[in-house]
């Protein structure tokens, strides 16, 4: 469970860092860049693709530096910056006359896509093939080889953009559901649907990879 219990220490560290950056402390800004630039690029890529990501992130940093005094500490620094980023992505898409292929900011609905391939279930709703536990060896293999993260990273690329964005924010980066809703302009329910679909697809992809591996 993330969020609740450790909110106070994180908020205080955030406040301190923000104060130093606002004061003109270059090292503090370096720290912020180190922490956020990579994740910002990854998040931007998830919503506008490779081409727009660099521009959107550059615009975001410019806006952050211009608007630094306006940060009120009502959200975390990161959430505030990511909201700016999401808005910049929206602007970029409008300028490039593209529709963001994502149902953010209340635009577009999620559709009825099932999270799990319906063919996996009998008419009575039972798994047609039993789910085999990923054997005790396999998770070990994954973690010992440090492959778990790499596997998910690869499969994330195959998710639809909206699901990828939510999974990145929630599961990869550990943001709370409130933060994700604030960043992407999603209702709690829609955020959960996207998260569910994304995780379900990742599980199916990992299952497929593991099955192939165990067969060899």
């Amino acid at each position, binding site marked *: 469970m993330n969020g609740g219990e450790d909110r106070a220490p994180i908020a205080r560290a955030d406040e301190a860092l923000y104060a130093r950056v606002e004061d*003109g402390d*270059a090292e503090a*800004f*370096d720290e912020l*860049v*180190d922490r956020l*630039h*990579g*994740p910002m*690029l*990854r998040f931007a890529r998830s919503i506008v693709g490779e081409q727009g990501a660099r521009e959107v992130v*550059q615009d975001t*940093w*410019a806006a952050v*530096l*211009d608007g*630094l005094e306006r940060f009120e500490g009502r959200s975390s620094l990161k959430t505030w910056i990511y909201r700016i980023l999401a808005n910049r992505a929206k602007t970029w898409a409008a300028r490039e006359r593209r529709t963001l292929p994502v149902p953010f900011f209340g635009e577009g609905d999620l559709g009825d896509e099932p*999270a*799990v391939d319906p063919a996996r*279930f009998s008419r*009575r*709703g*039972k*798994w047609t093939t*039993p*789910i*085999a*536990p*990923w054997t005790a060896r396999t*998770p070990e293999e*994954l973690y010992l080889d*440090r492959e*778990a*993260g*790499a*596997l*998910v*990273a690869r499969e*994330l690329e195959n998710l639809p953009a909206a699901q990828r964005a939510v*999974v990145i924010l929630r*599961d*990869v980066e*550990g943001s709370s*559901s409130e933060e994700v809703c604030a960043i992407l302009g999603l209702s709690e329910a829609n955020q*959960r649907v996207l*998260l*569910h679909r994304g*995780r*379900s697809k*990742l*599980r199916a992809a*990992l*299952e497929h990879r593991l099955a192939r591996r165990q067969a060899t």
Partner: protein
Amino acid sequence: MIVTCKDLSEAVTDHREGRLGAADRAGWAIHLAWCSSCRAYVAQMGLVIDAAREVPCAPPADDDRAALRARFAERAKRS
């Protein structure tokens, strides 16, 4: 009410987020008590989330760092 494997597979995230009502929570527990496939499924969804935490992120490219430092210095000069 959660009865079938399909029902449960749809409820996994709701359950984890604490969004199931009492009846659904009961159905969830009952179903998992007898269905080893769904127990495996739930465990695997957890493993996916664990694995997601391990997704690496590239550090900022040197060019980007330099450009951002310069921008920051500009701002300091202006104020």
